């Protein structure tokens, strides 16, 4: 009877220990259970029951087993404290990368949402046919000014230029438009040659186009912005007739947002035969160069004979549209180049690698450090790209040089000061654990700089390193230095202490 009871109590004790072990973190569980079981066995041996069974010895064993729960709770508490101490340390590499990743996500989402950015970041929407140039009088330097008279265009067209196989003219004018409703708005209308969009390669990109064949009635192409503003994006307007100035014109289609990259901002393009071009009107001429013409291009320009009757010496320049269709990526690359050139002017590009002791972190730690730096730079550049687009095109409805300048300036400054922050941050990160060093302490006196060390001392909260930053760089202490702490410093970072 007593042996059966003892066996049952033994099983119960083992069950209690097993239950207690479930409270211990998994990685320590087996070790604790093994030690408890061994101790229980030896305890029972050291307190043998009288006559095979004794309530006292069983009580001691039960107390030991119940104490295992206290052990387990204590171990859990210690483990939780340890993990909280680890996770609550600010300035860890993970925290830094998460912040940068968050910024990147926000700027990317904004870039996807803003219509101006999505228009600009898809160059296929506004790419023109290769070999197109804008003809301009060589007397003008402003590439967006209208410089060609109607007569000059007709003369050019009549002459057989070896380097040109296509010409189109357009001029800007404000016209009163009658759309059938009472109000008669004024549109910025580009009076253009019939071949303009065929020359540009744009008709294929019309977002909506009339199926009816073009007849004797002039046609008009609406801008996407006007179509949405004036007609509420109604597709039924395609094919209808509107009165533009004195001409009745059939709506041929809608040009997608951002497709128009040529000088002059138009709400609509009225396509007319060249015979209707006023001889004295000043406008723009778009030319398509032959292979021979393209071979003559130098520095984005090509010389064209002008055929100006009054001034035979006035010639023309054919200016490439490369600048207008280069897209944001080219501008961003240029901004990065400028930022990297300017970087040494605002901060030291050294990472402060020198150290007092011969001890150095392992090759793997060094590799992690460089990977971390590379990741930060990659994230920063991505943020700079999307954030500069967001800033420059948040309210843009079409191409503008101002937006391009804004993108160049914003990406330059984000890259420049971002890289400065990246380097400063990297210099203040412990080479071992990549956490930022903290607790700055002023050491020494500035008045004794040449007699003793004077500067700021920072410490890694994990106890790996001390960073010495000189207050006044001298020939013998010019840059910051790392001091790697050995195990004798460990007790300072023991957390809750012993016992």
């Amino acid at each position, binding site marked *: 009877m007593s042996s059966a009871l003892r066996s049952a109590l033994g099983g119960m004790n083992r069950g209690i220990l097993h239950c207690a072990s479930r409270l211990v973190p998994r990685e320590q569980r087996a070790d604790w259970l093994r030690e408890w079981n061994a101790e229980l066995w*030896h305890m029972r041996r050291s307190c043998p029951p009288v006559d095979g069974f004794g309530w006292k010895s069983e009580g001691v064993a039960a107390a030991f087993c119940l104490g295992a729960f206290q052990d387990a709770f204590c171990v859990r508490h210690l483990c939780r404290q340890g993990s909280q101490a680890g996770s609550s340390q600010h300035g860890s590499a993970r925290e830094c990368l998460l912040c940068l990743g968050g910024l990147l996500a926000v700027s990317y989402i904004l870039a996807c949402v803003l219509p101006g950015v999505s228009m600009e970041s898809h160059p296929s929407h506004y790419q023109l046919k290769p070999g197109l140039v804008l003809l301009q009088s060589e007397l003008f330097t402003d590439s967006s000014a209208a410089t060609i008279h109607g007569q000059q265009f007709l003369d050019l067209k009549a002459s057989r230029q070896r380097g040109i196989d296509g010409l189109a003219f357009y001029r800007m004018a404000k016209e009163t438009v009658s759309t059938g409703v009472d109000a008669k708005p004024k549109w910025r209308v580009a009076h253009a040659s019939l071949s303009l969009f065929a020359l540009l390669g744009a008709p294929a990109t019309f977002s909506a186009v009339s199926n009816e064949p073009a007849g004797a009635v002039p046609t008009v192409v609406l801008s996407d912005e006007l179509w949405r503003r004036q007609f509420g994006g109604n597709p039924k307007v395609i094919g209808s007739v509107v009165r533009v100035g004195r001409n009745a014109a059939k709506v041929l289609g809608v040009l997608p947002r951002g497709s128009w990259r040529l000088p002059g901002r138009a709400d609509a393009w009225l396509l007319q035969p060249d015979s209707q071009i006023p001889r004295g009107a000043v406008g723009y001429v778009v030319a398509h160069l032959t292979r021979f013409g393209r071979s003559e291009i130098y520095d984005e320009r090509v010389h064209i004979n002008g055929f100006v009757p009054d001034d035979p010496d006035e010639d023309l320049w054919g200016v490439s549209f490369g600048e207008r269709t280069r897209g944001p990526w080219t501008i961003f690359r240029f901004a990065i180049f400028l930022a990297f050139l300017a970087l040494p002017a605002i901060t030291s590009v050294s990472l402060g690698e020198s150290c007092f002791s011969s001890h150095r972190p392992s090759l793997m730690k060094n590799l992690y450090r460089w990977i971390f730096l590379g990741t930060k730079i990659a994230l920063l550049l991505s943020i700079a790209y999307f954030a500069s687009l967001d800033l420059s095109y948040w309210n843009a409805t079409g191409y503008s040089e101002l937006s391009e300048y804004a993108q160049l300036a914003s990406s330059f400054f984000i890259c420049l000061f971002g890289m400065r922050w990246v380097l400063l941050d990297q210099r203040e990160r412990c080479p071992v654990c990549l956490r930022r060093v903290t607790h700055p302490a002023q050491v020494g006196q500035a008045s004794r700089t040449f007699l003793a060390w004077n500067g700021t001392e920072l410490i890694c909260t994990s106890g790996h390193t001390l960073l010495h930053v000189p207050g006044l760089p001298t020939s013998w202490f010019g840059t910051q230095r790392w001091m790697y702490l050995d195990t004798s410093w460990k007790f300072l970072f023991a957390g809750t202490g012993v016992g």
Partner: protein
Amino acid sequence: MVSEAKLSHTAAIILQAISSGCVYGFSIMEMTGLPSGTVYPAMRRLERDQLISSRWERQSIADAEQRPARKYYKLTSTGRTTLEASRKRYPLLERMIPSEEARSL
């Protein structure tokens, strides 16, 4: 190198017990009168702070004696230095648990 102020009385008693020859958990409990819920976690912390070290007995020895293997504890050199400092702070420590050398005299 652990500062004296950081060593609690309980930890000092456990160090003294190990120093006096109690080299496993239950014997320390018996010697100090501390419950298991106090002794074992305290020993883990002392081990973490490198004041004591532990090792499992070889299984072959335990098998030969038909018993489970035990975990033995001993003081490290840091632990001995710390215990010396603690004895100055807690003068009754040695009187409560005489060390092996004192007992052999």
